[in-house]
């Protein structure tokens, strides 16, 4: 408990409160009147309204499209399942600049839909919503699917034997068990879309603005700290309200479940209905996720002299230009992986401890802490980044120019994932198992190792995958933490896109493709990790 609390106090609460304080204080006196001033501006109210409703709509749409996917991934075996699971997570790590490009290619002028039906969706809300589904599909599939694959199908079968219909059995047995995971996934998707930044800017055009965009503008561009501080507080309140709602709906439902090994619960689909479901899900994934990714890959090979590896070769020689602009792509891959590795470790340690502490205890303090852990998802990167600047500037913590700041900032975003994916599983572990182990003389650590670990191992891997992916694709913190000599992949992509010329554009696409591959490969590796199987059950 102490470690996560300290981590959050130093790297989140302190910087954010410092920057908000600077905006709301003049000569040490709080100016709360400013809150009213800002909130009575019609343009700010517009932004607030748009932010809220697009996030709600995006969340609903994501759940609608991704829950069948979660089921299919949990219950069916089909060839290429592992690869596909990794691939649907790829969008999560792509820089929004790149995703925006892909979506414009599909939804915009001369795009896929335009060719087929003459439909153009760019600069409409639909483009924003679809892109949000694209980004967050994996969140639902992984968090819900992770738990679903461990639910014992025999419980549902028992209900059927006792005379319940297929649907009733699902509603009474499976749905309540899944509730917490679905709610957690919905919460994360909501927070992500609520604080959406790049997607809204690129696909919506300047006419649409979210709170996050507005905070960035007020802080980074206009240096209007009072307005930014008020908006940050509005974000806090909104996120807080959502968390409270989540707590109320979920707490009552979390209870011990009988978890089984996922390998036992998935099988080949049987019958026409199941095959149709599988087909439908695969088709959705294909259209929604593989198509935009495919566009990027296609463009990376589409050189001036037809298809070829021209841009990739150009990337290879990038290091030889003798300027500070680019590094060889392998080096950028190395940087990205290093940062991601460290960020994942930090997130797993902090998040794992927090989740363990939250399982063991109940009470208000703990619940408050649980909510606190989610807050970084609802606070803009620019607020945290600028907060770092004005707080971490004195020894022993003069970290402003240190590389460790990057993984730390990324871990802030990774921790909530770790907690959210591990908590439902940890809470589902039956306490009596632990007690039995203790009675048989196991030390608490040994009991944890023998009882909890085998059960949560899958959740840990899922969580690690998320933390890793978040870090790989993270762009906000990396921008504020200035280390031009070792750029990560997303930073290198953004640098290339920021220049005119065919080679630069092509290389940006090639580098994005490499980023996708690195991400998919890392996630596949994580899927494959099999620790010692002492916990077979």
């Amino acid at each position, binding site marked *: *408990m102490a470690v996560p609390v300290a981590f959050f106090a130093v790297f989140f609460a302190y910087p954010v409160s410092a920057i908000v304080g600077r905006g709301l204080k003049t000569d040490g006196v709080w100016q709360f009147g400013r809150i009213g001033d800002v909130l009575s501006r019609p343009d700010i109210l517009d932004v607030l309204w748009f932010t809220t409703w697009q996030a709600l709509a995006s969340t609903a749409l994501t759940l609608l499209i991704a829950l069948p996917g979660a089921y299919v991934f949990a219950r069916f075996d089909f060839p290429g399942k592992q690869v596909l699971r990794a691939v649907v997570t790829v969008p999560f790590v792509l820089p929004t600049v790149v995703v925006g490009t892909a979506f414009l290619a599909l939804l915009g002028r001369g795009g896929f839909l335009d060719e087929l039906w003459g439909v153009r969706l760019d600069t409409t809300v639909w483009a924003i919503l679809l892109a949000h589904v694209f980004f967050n599909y994996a969140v639902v599939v992984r968090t819900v699917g992770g738990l679903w694959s461990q639910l014992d199908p025999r419980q549902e079968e028992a209900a059927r034997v006792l005379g319940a219909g297929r649907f009733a059995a699902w509603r009474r047995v499976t749905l309540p068990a899944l509730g917490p995971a679905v709610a957690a996934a919905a919460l994360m998707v909501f927070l992500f879309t609520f604080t959406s930044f790049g997607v809204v800017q690129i696909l919506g055009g300047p006419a649409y603005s979210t709170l996050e965009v507005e905070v960035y503008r007020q802080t980074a561009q206009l240096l209007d700290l009072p307005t930014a501080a008020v908006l940050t507080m509005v974000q806090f309140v909104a996120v807080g309200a959502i968390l409270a709602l989540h707590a109320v709906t979920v707490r009552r439902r979390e209870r011990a479940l009988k978890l089984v090994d996922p390998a036992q619960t998935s099988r080949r689909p049987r019958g026409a209905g199941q095959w149709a479901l599988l087909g439908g899900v695969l088709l959705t994934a294909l259209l929604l996720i593989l198509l935009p990714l495919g566009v990027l890959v296609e463009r990376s090979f589409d050189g001036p002299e037809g298809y070829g590896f021209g841009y990739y070769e150009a990337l290879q020689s990038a290091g030889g230009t003798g300027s500070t602009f680019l590094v060889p792509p392998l080096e950028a891959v190395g940087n990205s992986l290093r940062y991601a590795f460290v960020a994942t470790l930090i997130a797993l340690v902090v998040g794992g401890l927090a989740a363990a502490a939250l399982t063991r205890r109940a009470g208000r303090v703990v619940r408050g802490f649980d909510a606190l852990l989610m807050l970084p998802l609802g606070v803009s990167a620019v607020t945290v980044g600028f907060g770092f600047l004005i707080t971490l500037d004195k020894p022993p913590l003069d970290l402003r120019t240190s*590389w460790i700041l990057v993984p730390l900032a990324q871990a802030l975003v990774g921790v909530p994932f770790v907690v959210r994916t591990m908590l439902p599983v940890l809470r589902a572990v039956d306490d009596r198992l632990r007690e039995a182990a203790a009675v048989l003389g196991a030390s608490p650590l040994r009991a944890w190792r023998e009882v909890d670990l085998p059960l949560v191992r899958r959740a840990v891997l899922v969580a690690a995958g998320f933390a890793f992916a978040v870090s790989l694709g993270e762009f906000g913190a990396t921008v504020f933490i*200035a280390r*031009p000599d070792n750029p990560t992949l997303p930073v290198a992509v953004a640098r290339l*896109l920021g220049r005119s010329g065919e080679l630069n554009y092509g290389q940006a696409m090639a580098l994005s493709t490499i980023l996708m591959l690195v991400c998919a490969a890392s996630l596949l590796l994580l899927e494959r990790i099999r620790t010692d199987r002492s916990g077979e059950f």
Partner: protein
Amino acid sequence: MSTTKKYASTALAAALGVTVLAGCGGSDDTSARSGASKGSGSKTVTLVTHDSFNASEDVLKQFTKESGYTVQLLKSGDAGAALNQEILTKGSPRGDVFFGVDNTLLSRALDNGLFTAYEAKGLDRVLEGTEQDDKHRVTPVDTGDICVNYDKKFFADKKLAPPRTFEDLLKPAYKNLLVTENAATSSPGLGFLLGTIASRGEDGYQDYWKRLKANGVKVVDGWEQAYNEEFSGSAGGRKAKADRPLVVSYASSPPVEVLYADPQPKEAPTGVSTGTCFRQTEYAGLLKGAKNEAGGKALLDFLISKTFQEDVPLNMFVNPVVKDAKLPEIFTEFGEKVDKPATVAPEKIAANREQWVQSWHSLVVK
């Protein structure tokens, strides 16, 4: 709760493990140690700048050879964000010299007292009009022009003359052809808005934008999107089947198109409407509270030396600011000379920018 104590100790051990590992992870990162070696006699001088800064390694090595100082770069976001971070950390700066404040932001930097005055060696060689501060708190380093670019092929196919001036852009012949950037978030977008203000006056610019909107101007958020996705003359735009042959970009964009095409074409695929330009000048200054003032002064001298100035165009695609620097061939051959760019005085920009951008936003975007 003895269990939690056990947890805490395991946790602490794990956390320590992480920090040790983290140390290993970055052990090949030599600059991680630079923070510890910034004493007064330090041999490192730190240049804080924006993401677009770029220089040849050889040129930076030459500075080290001449002065004995090694340059360490810190980049932090776009020009506006980088400057604002410096303002926030005023008094305990992250570096010694800041480069990249342009004439649209200059007053903000000066009013905040970011810089220590220093007259760089060789300052007498800079172009007229680029020096904006008689106290020498900032030193001009480069100039660039924000102008409308046109897609040559489109206008040739249509047998239509490309627009030349702000006035031309209102003609029905160019309806629905121009894409520009959000003046609130993008520096070329802001530059173009300021250009229209310089040309039409503070009373006339709103009317101009009303008519431009009626003539079908499209506004997107940033330069990348405008240029790579919407503009039919760029490589990205050709792939995206873009349909806007006019874009707000830089006077240096055509030579860059040539430079990064393989094989190099005989002429640039794009041209510049030279009557639509707004001049940007970028400045550098010695940060107040710099740990290495001597190094910072040496670096400022170097930034306007012939060596660095001639290295600027091909790295940052802007023009040198000193008279004796030669432009690279690709610029003289494929670029266009802008004779009369529009300008607006920095203090006027500082006083009115927000109000201008606000009214532009409600006129054009909403």
